[in-house]
């Protein structure tokens, strides 16, 4: 994937921060077309941020750290 959207990545990572989710549920929350969602999912898997097991997508340890940091940055700028 040549170009990625920060908003979409943040949406996926922050949605998974609330807990593991089924692929379909995550797809609905990502507000993407299904092929595009699969591109994002494989992109995040390649970078070791998410893992998929039995149709359930969850954050890896690295992904958990990244999502927590992302959440903190958003809070910093939104709670001003």
């Amino acid at each position, binding site marked *: 994937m040549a170009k990625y959207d920060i*908003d979409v*990545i943040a949406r996926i990572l922050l949605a998974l921060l609330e807990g593991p989710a089924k692929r379909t549920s995550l797809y609905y929350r990502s507000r993407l077309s299904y092929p595009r969602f699969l591109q994002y999912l494989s992109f995040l898997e390649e970078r070791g941020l998410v893992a998929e097991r039995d149709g359930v997508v969850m954050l890896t340890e690295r992904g958990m750290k990244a999502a927590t*940091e992302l959440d903190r*940055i958003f809070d910093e*700028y*939104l709670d001003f």
Partner: protein
Amino acid sequence: MKLFYLVFAFAAVALLAAALELAAQLHGAAPLRPMAAYIPARPQTAPQMVVLLNSTARVNSTWFVYRVYINGTSGYLYLPLDLRWLYGAPAVEAPAAGIGGAAGRPVEIPIAAVAAPAQPPAPAPRTVAAEALGAASGFLLALSAYSALCRGRACKAGRLRALLYASTSLLAGSAAAALAAGPPMLALGTPGAIGVYRYLAARRRLEAWLNTILT
């Protein structure tokens, strides 16, 4: 979200002020305009114009000159026709005795001013620009409300974007209000500028951080 609520409220106020001022201008009143800058238009009255027929003098074979009074001010009117033909008076080819002391009382013809065609005045470019900015501001405000209505962690990116929409809406609304009511209304846009700055700073930081994570 405190900044978002502040910016949203200011945007609504700026939009309301611009709308009120434009509506007041449309109906002839200007409540928000400073009184020092408001000069009421003088009532337009038809000019009183009187042509003294006996004061005519022939300039050449075609042109006549008449003595006229317009609102009490005298002057000379050059016309390529003899007005006496129009009013049934005999054409007298003795114009030399006219101007400056004709014998007897001069014949007066009051001429009613021709009313201007009743056309609505074209809107000023400032008004058109204010209306366009106000419409853009309203659209962005609705978009920011739609983006901010989402709840949960996954919507934080959307709420940050809503801050940008609300800030842009406030800037457009304050510009519209400034065009309609005067430059001091630009001060309303200060929280909008802060909001745009915060959004850009957050965006820069997120991009830098995600680049380190994703590469």
